[in-house]
């Protein structure tokens, strides 16, 4: 069993500063050179409801939060009820006695907070004060943390924190001393990693219409784009988003769009246009539970099959999904390179669980490449020159040459055609591009394998993190296989797997990765572990489900 994990949960109403308290806790653990994983759970509303943030920390690699906490701080009754079973053995529940009744340590947080202006927002600070007591942080250090993290009302916050600190200090007996780690990591969210990966590769324009859980990427660029030289545009709808991105790519601008499943439905027409005109555009899809509006702020992997074949017609499509926040950085960079190398649209498929969680990450920006296309070298320019590898050189306006991109089937110059021979010829060109893409991917790292032992576990996307943490927690020796690329599907990497015992872990209700493995690689899966309640796996629960399934089915 994994040692040295400390988990902190803070729950309350939206607007009480629980997410902020989670971030502050994560930064505190990071300063101790420990690794962290933070997951924020929130409903689709701005004030009220129930929010919680859970931060797990360890001196070794940690891939998931745990839903058994050493310290739970709840600000209201609803949070108490929801989290009373999330207290670990020997863990502590601290509740706000003004708003909740229950077992544990009671502190009148609200009545203390009411003594200050903007008292609702200040309540999250109480969570930090209690954490400070629990892990033996002195008041002086607590003051430093509050000064650094809470810009507004510093004086009041410190005074309030001291009151809570004193109250907690009297009542908390079994304190924990957190061992320091040996390396300070950056604490990155998945959305930040995606934004940074695109920036490292030369992104020029990001287009997005707000839609959870893709919006943090829009906000990342809005906040950081100016100094990076990246333009952020929020047009009238997702249709404009995708079409503007294609227009921008016509000028040579590296363009990317972001949305979730519903918004991507509206972009399919443009996705197909990108396939036909051979526009290099990267589409980011952050998944949430569907169908339709579904559950906007929760997580799911229900768009796997949807993302494999969007848009009408036949053209090369690229789909890949990162299995960690570090991988989100490198994969975004790689996909932006691929769309420019092969002039076809690609999808970066992820989930709320990756995009809105954060974890310790080491990224090396110089390992990325600037996305550079094959350029026209002189002579008469033909936009759709019929080349051996199917990739026609690019040229951008202004130019004395004619540059014509065409949504109709076209000749090499880009003029519309209805000639049967030309129609077939251009299909062949795009098919050769598809082959070139596959050959190119064969030389790349398209699949991750972790650990040793049988049976194997197939998984993808952010669920990879849950699986890795579950195996670590449960001392389970199994090989984890995570296809990073989902289209083209790297069957060449899977040929040896057919005869083996394998299970799948994924977050949807129909087993979409299971279907894909069977269809593309002929792999029969013994059993699937599915979760489709909108919440990410808890490693403790997942470890026992894996053990159970392996015992029964394999």
């Amino acid at each position, binding site marked *: 069993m994994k040692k040295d994990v400390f988990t902190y949960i803070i729950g309350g109403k939206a607007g009480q500063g629980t997410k902020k308290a989670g971030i502050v806790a994560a930064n505190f653990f990071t300063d101790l050179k420990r690794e962290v994983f933070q997951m924020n759970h929130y409903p689709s509303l701005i004030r009220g409801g129930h929010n919680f943030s859970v931060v797990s920390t360890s001196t070794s690699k940690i891939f998931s939060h745990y839903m058994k906490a050493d310290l739970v701080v709840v600000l209201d009754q609803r949070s108490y009820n929801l989290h009373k079973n999330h207290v670990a053995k020997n863990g502590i529940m601290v509740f706000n006695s003004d708003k909740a009744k229950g077992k544990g340590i009671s502190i009148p947080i609200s009545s203390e907070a009411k003594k200050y202006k903007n008292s609702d927002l200040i309540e999250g600070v109480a969570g930090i004060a209690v954490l400070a007591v629990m892990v033996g942080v002195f008041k002086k250090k607590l003051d430093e943390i509050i000064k650094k993290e809470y810009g507004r009302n510093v004086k009041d916050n410190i005074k309030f924190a001291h009151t809570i600190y004193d109250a907690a200090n009297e009542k908390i007996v079994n304190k924990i001393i957190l061992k320091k780690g040996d390396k300070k990591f950056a604490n990155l969210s998945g959305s930040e990693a995606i934004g940074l990966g695109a920036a490292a590769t030369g992104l020029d324009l990001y287009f997005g219409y707000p839609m959870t859980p893709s919006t943090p990427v829009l906000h990342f660029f809005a906040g950081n784009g100016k100094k*990076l030289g990246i333009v952020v545009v929020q047009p009238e709808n997702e249709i404009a988003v995708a079409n503007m991105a294609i227009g921008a790519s016509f000028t040579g601008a590296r363009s990317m769009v972001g949305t979730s499943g519903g918004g991507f439905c509206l972009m399919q027409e443009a996705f197909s246009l990108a396939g036909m005109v051979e526009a290099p555009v990267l589409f980011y899809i952050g998944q949430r539970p569907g169908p339709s509006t579904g559950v906007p702020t929760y997580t799911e992997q229900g768009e796997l099959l949807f993302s494999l074949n969007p848009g009408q017609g036949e053209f090369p499509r690229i789909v890949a999904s990162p299995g960690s926040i570090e991988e989100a950085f490198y994969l975004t960079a790689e996909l932006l390179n691929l769309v420019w190398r092969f002039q076809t649209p690609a999808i970066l498929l992820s989930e709320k669980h990756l995009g809105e969680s954060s974890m310790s*990450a080491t990224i090396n920006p110089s390992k990325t490449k600037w996305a550079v296309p094959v350029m026209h070298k002189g002579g008469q320019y033909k936009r759709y020159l019929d080349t051996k590898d199917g990739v026609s050189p690019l040229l951008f306006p202004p*130019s004395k040459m004619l540059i014509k991109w065409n949504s109709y089937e076209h000749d090499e110059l880009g003029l519309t055609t209805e000639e049967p021979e030309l129609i077939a010829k251009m299909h062949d060109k795009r098919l050769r591009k598809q082959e070139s893409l596959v050959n190119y991917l064969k030389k790349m790292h398209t699949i991750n394998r972790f650990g040793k032992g049988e049976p194997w576990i197939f998984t993808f996307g952010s669920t990879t993190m849950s699986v890795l943490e579950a195996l670590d927690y449960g001392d389970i020796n199994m090989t984890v296989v995570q296809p990073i690329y989902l289209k083209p599907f790297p069957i060449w990497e899977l040929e040896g797997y057919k005869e083996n015992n394998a299970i799948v872990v994924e977050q949807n209700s129909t087993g979409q990765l299971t279907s894909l493995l069977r269809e593309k690689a002929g792999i029969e899966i013994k059993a699937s572990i599915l979760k489709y309640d909108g919440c990410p796996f808890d490693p403790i629960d997942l470890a026992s489900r894996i053990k159970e399934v392996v015992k029964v089915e394999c």
Partner: protein
Amino acid sequence: MSADLSTDAEITWCPGCGNFGILNAFKKVVKKLEDKGVDRDKLVISGGIGCHGKIIDYVGLSGLYSIHGRSMATVQGIKLGNPNLKVLAFAGDGDAFGEGIAHMIFAAKRNADITVVVHDNGTYALTTGQFSPTSNKGFKGPSLPQGNIEEPLNPLGLLLEAGASFVARGYSGKIDHLSDIIVQAVLHEGFSVVDVLQPCVVFNNTYKLYNEITEIISKPAENFEEAVMLVKEFRDRMPIGVFYKVNKPVFHREFYGDWNPVVDKVSRNERLKLIEDFV
């Protein structure tokens, strides 16, 4: 690019189609713009789907032959990518006022520096003559043989209200006048729309009508209210010309001044340094 702006594409419009007038006017536009210092290699075009869109194949200028209703979004993307380019979107009445009307309204609202030339023939001609957003009430087409039961839209009024800074109407039968208007539209910095009355010889032959009722106005309206009144007149008297022209802040300039994403790109080394600082 060929000197006479032609291409090898075979022209497949019906004989007598109003689109010929727009094509000829546009070729004049390119030459007039060159006289005014706008190089043709800096003029980029896009078009939607329908009879009008074929103009993209027929004009020897660079561009992106887009999809139905989206050419206005396409050219806004081109402009944002490289603001040194002048962009012009051709659209049919179905493109601009049906499928893509949201893009029109928002391009006008944000005063995007684009020109939209609408080939407004009041019918979906390439799909055999169904009623369109600007078809008159009673217009008979294969999808509504008993006659259109909807009133036609007043698109220019709508765009004025949305904030359009240049609004004009032309007639494909008056080529010189039309080319003058489009030149002004392209030179106008901000959103410009030219609604072109365009007879469809097969499904909506309006030559006789437009020859009778179109009336060239000598100057734009004095103010917004007058322009709103002017564009409403399209029954007995059909004014053509520039109705409204006003200088307003332009979207890409408000956004990033004179900076150009593809020309003034932040270097890789600088980017990597900033990213390292972030992590």
